[in-house]
């Protein structure tokens, strides 16, 4: 037996090592908001569709913690997270929506098809509020405590496994 027959296996083992190491490294491409822990900026948004009410900073300061969901009707993942928002609503969570660059008729169609878990929905046509609260995409969900301070940011769609985590964060924010 010759040693050189083992060279390919050794090279392959080296590749495996690097690949496995890289896989375990969190690939964090997401941009966390610098606003976590800070109070919400002042804003006032008109309603995003008929039959809903607009959102202002004051609406998010009423003594109890709330979820602020940044979404859009053109966003596929927002459809995927709709059932989870519905569940959170059934748990008694008040969810405030901000629709990004959307049209009222699209918003209405989205709500008709996928349900409306929102207490109110503001229209952010130029992404101004979105940028101000440090959100760089949709969907994102923020936990806002009773004083209007951002306590937690969830980036991406809410999957079933995230619901308990968000409930926990809301509980913490309520203390």
């Amino acid at each position, binding site marked *: *037996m*010759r040693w050189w*027959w*083992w060279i*390919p*296996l050794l090279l*392959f*083992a080296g*590749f*495996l090592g*690097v*690949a*496995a*190491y*890289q*896989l375990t*490294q969190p*690939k964090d491409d997401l941009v966390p908001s610098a606003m976590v822990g800070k109070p919400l900026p002042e804003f006032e948004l008109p309603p995003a569709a008929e039959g809903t009410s607009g959102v202002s900073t004051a609406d998010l300061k009423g003594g109890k913690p709330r979820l602020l969901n940044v979404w*859009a009707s*053109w*966003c*596929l993942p927002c*459809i995927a997270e709709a059932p989870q928002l519905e569940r959170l609503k059934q748990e008694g969570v008040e969810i405030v929506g901000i629709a990004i*660059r959307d049209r009222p008729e*699209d918003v209405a169609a989205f709500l008709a*098809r996928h349900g409306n878990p929102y207490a109110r929905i503001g229209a952010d046509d130029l992404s101004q509020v979105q940028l101000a609260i440090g959100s760089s995409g949709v969907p994102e969900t923020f936990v806002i405590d009773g004083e209007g301070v951002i306590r937690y940011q969830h980036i991406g769609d809410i999957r079933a496994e995230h619901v308990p985590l968000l409930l926990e964060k809301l509980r913490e924010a309520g203390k």
Partner: protein
Amino acid sequence: MIAELGLAALWLAAALAALQLYAGTRALRPGGEAVAALVRPAAVVQGLACAIGFVMLLWLFAITDLSVKLVAANSHSAKPMIFKLAGAWGNHEGSMLLWVAVMALSGALIALIERRLPEKTMLATLAAQAFVGLGFYAFLIVSSNPFERLPQPAAEGLGLNPLLQDIGLAFHPPTLYFGYVGLSVAFSFAVGALLTRQVTPEFARVMRPWVLGAWVFLTLGITAGSYWAYYELGWGGWWFWDPVENASLMPWLAATALLHSASVLAARDALRAWTIMLGVVAFSMSMVGTFLVRSGILTSVHAFAVDPERGSFILVLLTLYIGGALALFALRAGTVTEGQRFSITSREGALVFNNVMLSAVLAIVLFGTLYPLLTEAFDVRVSVGPPYFNPMGAIFVVPMLLVMTVGPLLRWRGDSIGRIQRPLILIAVIMLAALVAALALGEAGVLPLLGLALAVGLAVASFLPLRGRRLTRVPLAVWGMVIAHFGLAVALFGMASESAFSEERLAAIAVGDTARVGPWDVTLSEVLPAAGPNWTAIEGHLLASYAGGDPIALDPQSRSFWAPPQETTESALATRWNGQLYAVVGSDAGAGRWQLRLWWKPFVTFIWYGGMLVALGGALALIGRVIDDLRRRAVRARIAERRAEEAV
């Protein structure tokens, strides 16, 4: 019901693969004769079951069953039927199912018709095939079930995006998968031959059609992918050395080497261990490519389903398949007896040189692709691009092409340079003449000049193996080689010409003004808004005339989509026999002017014509080999018949 049937078919196929693996390995040991008879039937039924699974998925997509998650996520009831069907493999789960279905059908085909190898080698091969298949079944059933139901049927599918409805995109990925499947079959044969120590010329002949087929598909896939990137990205380039592109190039390089070493083994019974090694490496490269692309550990300009979990699964499969095969190789290769010897100046010698150079290029591409991974482990972010790949690749490609001009002229076993003196001088003179002509045409870099000279020399040299032969009697396989080598010369000519003689013009011009690029006069006749189902665009209307000839209308667009919001550049091309004019329109440049980017790319289309010729050559060789095999089979059957008669 259909989804459940499909899932049941998958489970059945997995169970049969397990049986095939057990029986195949058991049959290799003494006392295993009883189960040996199970292997081939298991492979055939497994192939059918898996194919049924895939047909069920197609059916679900055809009827748009929105209670199935995969359909709901990737299809829409209003799509044309062809795109509904293509949607079945236009996603991670479906593409994996297609891959494993084609692989299982290939296994079934081998089990049905392949009787040339010793039965034990065949059993070992089918066991290896089952082992590979089993991993994929586990992957599908455990973590990527294509038949998963939604708790509530969706009201409508999410896959209406008209952008998805691109016929090229629908058929490009399967082409590469077919290539990967062919390499997986070659891998199984290599493992089977190693397990039974039967590395014979017959083994190479049996494996070769699969390698050839894989190689044809990979060639087509790479050619199509390159053209897609060229017209779609709007950057004017045709190859970006992007990880996704490299992932398809690496198996191709390995398959090319394997193809040639298998020829040596088939014709001359030499390079035994090396051919086995390449069989393992070629499949490894397709798995490594799949891993790099799907795990998302490398960033790329092409998007893919990126998911670390799937990445881990593929990595585990990779470890089992490739680690296992390489360990087996390390243990067994020493016991594979050495093949026939040959002189350095011989067909074998030239092919060995080609193999070593191809392997070196493969190593260069592999290192370059993995290097960012390595440095990221030390928290340094780098990207590796043309400044590395082009010169480093050329160091090995140029000598390979030089030897390629003479290799096919050499005799097997031993030859002398003196015998082929005249063609040698002819080729050298042609290359020098081409070099001088290219120098006279204008300034260009060293590599493009070398490329032009080599391309012209190789184009002529590729036909020399035909000299002195009656063309009607030249075997199809030789025609295949000639055409594939000529195709490579054509592609190389396109690449070198594009890089040596391209002219670029970036201008801001007002309506009515004219910009010049190379021999073209391009007039901006008007700029108009345009609209599609979910986009609006600025469309530039250009009139391009070549050397004062009749103007051709070109309408490049800059599109804005609103759901989701994004912008894209749609290039416009004017194709002539001697090149392409490539036009991109940008945004408003102020003062009534518009940005316009124009390229004149002489002979750029030769790159893809060449690629198609290479694939055609491969296909001809494949057909030639298969016809030969069938003929030999018929002869053998006749001999057996006669013997039987004599015995009576």
